[in-house]
């Protein structure tokens, strides 16, 4: 198997190297990829959409359909992870673990028993080895708000600098995942409940598709944001810029929720306790 595999790989590689003879040299301004469509995008984006970042304009406006279905693919991946892994019924006897935060002593409570009276000093944990490191916890708690602020900047400033819904959404998702890693999953789930997460995931796709459908209602093509000019009270060119922002927010929400959803399911193999 390994020899056959190596032969196939070398054959494919050799064919591809042979094909590079016909490729344009690196950085050639007259290469086929840079001559047909892309000059139109570069030269006309400003007057057609008033968005200086051409990548954002092409992503959310010229190729809006593509991006909409990419978002749907991400949503589908989140849902697939959920249905593959999520275990709703817990196995084994019901028991709860509590840790005394001051002395690190752990107590186990079998089902039917009373909980400790002084709950402020106890935190509930899922497994005996759930780590608790004061330095890591504090530093992450300090960092997370700034990470989220930066993520919002990346989404909102995607028109003028590198950024947009995908990047900002991933950073937002990473901030919650950092919370789950540095504290425990119970803390992260308190901030971002599973139901809310699934809802946000669908809401993001809905914002995107809904904006497109709204344009359809105003009598123009699907995802032609200039139709929104009448409700936004701006000229059609600026309306396209605003439409791109709305769609990017939808993408950001969907991507953030999906990243957290996939992490929660895969890291705990669907049990939503301390899996890692």
């Amino acid at each position, binding site marked *: 198997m390994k020899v056959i595999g190596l032969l196939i790989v070398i054959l494919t590689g050799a064919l591809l190297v042979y094909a590079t003879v016909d490729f344009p040299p690196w*950085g050639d301004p007259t290469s086929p990829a840079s001559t047909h469509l892309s000059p139109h995008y570069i*030269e006309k984006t400003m007057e057609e959409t008033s968005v*200086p970042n051409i990548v954002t304009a092409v992503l959310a406006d010229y190729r809006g359909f593509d991006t909409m279905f990419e978002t749907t693919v991400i949503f589908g991946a989140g849902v697939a992870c959920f249905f593959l892994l999520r275990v709703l019924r817990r196995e084994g006897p019901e028991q709860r673990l509590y840790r005394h935060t001051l002395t690190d002593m752990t107590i186990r409570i079998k089902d039917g028993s009373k909980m400790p009276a002084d709950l402020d000093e106890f935190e509930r944990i899922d497994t005996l080895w759930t780590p608790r490191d004061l330095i890591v916890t504090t530093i992450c708690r300090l960092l997370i708000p700034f990470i989220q602020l930066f993520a919002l900047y990346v989404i909102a400033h995607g028109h003028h600098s590198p950024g947009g819904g995908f990047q900002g959404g*991933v950073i937002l998702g990473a901030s919650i995942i950092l919370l789950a890693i540095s504290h425990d999953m119970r803390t992260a789930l308190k901030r971002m409940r599973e139901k809310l997460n699934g809802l946000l995931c669908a809401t993001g796709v809905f914002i995107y598709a809904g904006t497109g459908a709204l344009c359809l209602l105003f009598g123009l093509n699907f995802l032609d944001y200039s139709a929104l000019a009448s409700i936004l009270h701006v000229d059609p060119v600026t309306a396209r810029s605003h439409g791109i922002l709305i769609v990017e927010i939808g993408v950001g929400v969907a991507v953030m929720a999906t990243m957290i959803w996939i992490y929660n399911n895969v890291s705990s193999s669907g049990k939503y306790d301390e899996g890692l």
Partner: protein
Amino acid sequence: MSELLATLVAKYNYWIYIALMMIGLYAIIAKNNLVKKIVGMNIFQTAIILFYVSIGAKKGATIPIIEHGHGEEVHGAASHVVHAVDYINPLPHVLMLTAIVVAVATLGVALALAVKVHDKYKTLEEDEILAQLRKK
């Protein structure tokens, strides 16, 4: 000889991506462990992403964000004419931007499937799984 050198300098970027792609493809075909196969799939995707981004490069051009100042009228497109040679090709960047996030999502699904396989067969080695399947 100098002709060969000129081709090498002009095309070596493609050969790097081909080498990366071959590593990924070999891992997908020949590795026994399912997680290593998934890692191979990701190396393959990285090769494709680098290939696309390098297609978009232009000598002497800058990132595809049209130069503009803050505060001034943004839609005054007539103020300066935009030349296509000054900015690199935005299209490959758009395609790869979505491809990266989709790659993460597919990685999640692949890992979820690997977790399921491990739950059922208690192993991630392909030959052991096949042996268990043949026993039944």
